[in-house]
């Protein structure tokens, strides 16, 4: 699998996914197992202490019983206790009388240090147990307060406990280490396995090329975690495909739009050159060619302009443009052609200004106004209405004329789109005017739409057509001028 190109800035590459997962798993497993092991040890130790306390209590009571048994002579006490204690292995006792003199003790261990370490208690509980080292041995014991000032110290050797606990600790940590190793291995395998669908995805994605933009990834065939990624990816391809097909349609349109006038030029010139003609005829040919060539040049420069806006190569020089003076200036420009068909030009709206590139805005409004006048009925009014409503600034250009069918409305702003195909090659414009308007409005952060509704008061098929430019007020700071 090829690695993606390293980013140019020396930013360290983030940790691999497997390493991240394994670090987390290892930390969690260690923490859990450590807690468990500690708990287990503590619990076993507590259990031993309880057992020992019970046993020592029993031994102390046996000693007390023996001492108080009227049937036994003091000489017999030792032998009798020896018998009693055979059941309790390695348990020792030492009895002090009221004057703290040892009266009786078991063989094998000297418990006198115990008297320095603890106080007598009436009942031996695990908390009373004291352990100490003596010679090579470790003992644990307590002192029971008997009647008549008797103190009975009892203790037992605890090597076998310690030995067991030592063994347990080793076993536990070894087990934990083995478990961690196993779990890490499993996690690593899991991550590898988990990333397999990504590899599959990546090889699927490599199938998609500009010729195969119709291919889509199947969100149902990837693990649920990747479904969203697949959907986003599909969305991206969808957008690309749309952009691509628009682009290729556009290229086809360009070819078509350029081919027609070019073939006119060529045919006309060839026909004219096919035999000798008068000077007047040659002049006529050159004029006709000139007109066609100028149209071509205009189309090329318009397309270039559009291509530049598409690529963000046009830099805006925004300033606060007062709308009313701008529109009045445009009205002055268009008054002659409006007058010809007795069309009135009217402005309505508050005195507001819009932050925009003045020449661009002028160009956009000029295209719309020229369109509106061209398609308006004679003796009607073309309006420019400016509104600020619901957080938006709206510039609405309205004419009364033939209604535009709803299916044409959304496509009006496409390049070379003509609602009326018979108007192909109309002397005015190449079908780029509205596309340019849209580019300008979009460049300024606004949007454009068109609405056309029949009006019963007008002749059939005629009504009001509005081109509406909208800017959100929060994005475009507006100054109320008066």
């Amino acid at each position, binding site marked *: 699998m090829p690695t993606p190109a390293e980013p140019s800035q020396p930013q360290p590459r983030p940790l691999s996914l497997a390493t991240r997962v394994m670090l987390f798993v290892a930390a969690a497993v260690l923490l859990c197992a450590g807690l468990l092991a500690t708990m287990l040890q503590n619990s076993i130790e507590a259990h031993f202490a309880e057992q020992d306390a019970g046993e020592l209590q029993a031994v102390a009571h046996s000693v007390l019983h023996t001492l108080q048994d009227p049937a036994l002579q003091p000489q017999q006490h030792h032998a009798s206790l020896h018998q009693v204690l055979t059941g309790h292995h390695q348990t020792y006792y030492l009895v002090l009388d009221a004057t703290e003199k040892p009266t009786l003790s078991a063989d094998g261990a000297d418990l006198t240090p115990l008297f320095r370490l603890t106080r007598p208690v009436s009942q031996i509980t695990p908390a009373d147990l004291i352990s100490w080292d003596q010679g090579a041995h470790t003992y644990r014991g307590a002192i029971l307060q008997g009647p008549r000032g008797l103190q009975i110290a009892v203790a037992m050797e605890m090597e076998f406990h310690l030995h067991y606990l030592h063994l347990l600790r080793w076993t536990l940590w070894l087990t934990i280490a083995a478990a961690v190793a196993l779990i890490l291995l499993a996690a690593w395998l899991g991550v590898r396995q988990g990333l397999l669908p990504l590899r599959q995805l990546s090889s699927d994605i490599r199938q998609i090329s500009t010729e195969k933009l119709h291919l889509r990834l199947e969100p149902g065939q990837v693990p649920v975690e990747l479904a969203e990624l697949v959907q986003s990816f599909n969305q991206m391809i969808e957008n690309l495909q749309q952009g691509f097909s628009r682009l290729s349609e556009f290229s086809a349109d360009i070819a078509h739009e350029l081919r027609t006038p070019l073939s006119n030029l060529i045919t006309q010139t060839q026909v004219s050159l096919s035999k000798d003609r008068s000077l007047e005829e040659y002049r006529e040919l050159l004029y006709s060619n000139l007109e066609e060539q100028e149209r071509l040049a205009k189309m090329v420069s318009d397309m270039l302009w559009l291509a530049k806006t598409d690529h963000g190569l046009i830099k805006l020089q925004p300033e606060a443009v007062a709308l009313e003076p701008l529109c009045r200036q445009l009205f002055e420009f*268009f008054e002659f052609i409006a007058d010809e068909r007795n069309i009135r030009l009217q402005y309505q709206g508050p005195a507001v200004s819009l932050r925009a590139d003045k020449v661009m805005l002028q160009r956009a409004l000029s*295209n719309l106004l020229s369109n509106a006048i061209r398609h308006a009925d004679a003796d009607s009014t073309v309006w420019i209405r400016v509104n600020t409503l619901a957080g938006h600034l709206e510039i609405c250009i309205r004419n009364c004329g033939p209604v535009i069918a709803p299916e044409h409305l959304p496509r009006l702003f496409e390049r070379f789109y003509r609602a009326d195909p018979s108007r192909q090659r109309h002397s005015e414009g190449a079908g780029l005017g509205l596309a340019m308007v849209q580019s300008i409005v979009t460049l300024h952060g606004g949007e454009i739409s068109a609405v056309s509704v029949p009006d019963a008061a007008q002749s059939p098929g005629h009504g009001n057509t509005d081109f509406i430019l909208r800017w959100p007020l929060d994005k475009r700071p507006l100054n109320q001028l008066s």
Partner: protein
Amino acid sequence: MRLLIVEDEVKTGDYLKQGFTEAGFNPTLCRNGLDGHHLAMTEEFELIILDVMLPDVDGLRIVKALRQANRHTPVLLLSALDTVDDRVRGLELGADDYLVKPFAFNELLARARTLLRRGQLAPQADRLQAADLVLEISKHKASRGGKKLNLTPKEFALLELLLRREGEVLPRSLIASQVWDMNFDSDTNVIDVAVRRLRSKVDDDQALKLIHTVRGMGYKLEVPDADAS
């Protein structure tokens, strides 16, 4: 009028030379930047037309060299590039105007004449006259053969422009820019309609027609020679 044209594209260069010669100029054509640079620095011209993209020494460098040497010959740049930056750079370096290819020759001619006129600093005449057409600018009065013409302000401005540049062919884009301050190519036929209206007021019912359409190029105001027409 001596004119220097620096243009490496063969066909463009030839047609520019022919066009300017026929328009009454005396153009020198230079096909590379090095010669252009040398000529611009050593000889006197009234106007220099420079292609920006030359293979050896580019046009911007020639402008820079000229201005650094304190030579103030007006310079008009021709370029296939059209971004605000290019334009601004060219003008900042000291060029006087900037025209983007493809351009119409009459547009270039009109701009060249504007640049040449700028140097003359002639006081703007208040009274303009062509044949029996008289314009009194400050009084805002126009008359033909002593008869007052009723003109709207824009018609008056249009007539003034045509009269001030009598005999020159004015392209539509120049008229739109000068009269209406519309500085972009508009698809409309506003200029044609406006000239038609003006003509109906100025030339209708007159034997001597003053406003002429130059097909494919624009309009001009001219008193026809007695022997022509």
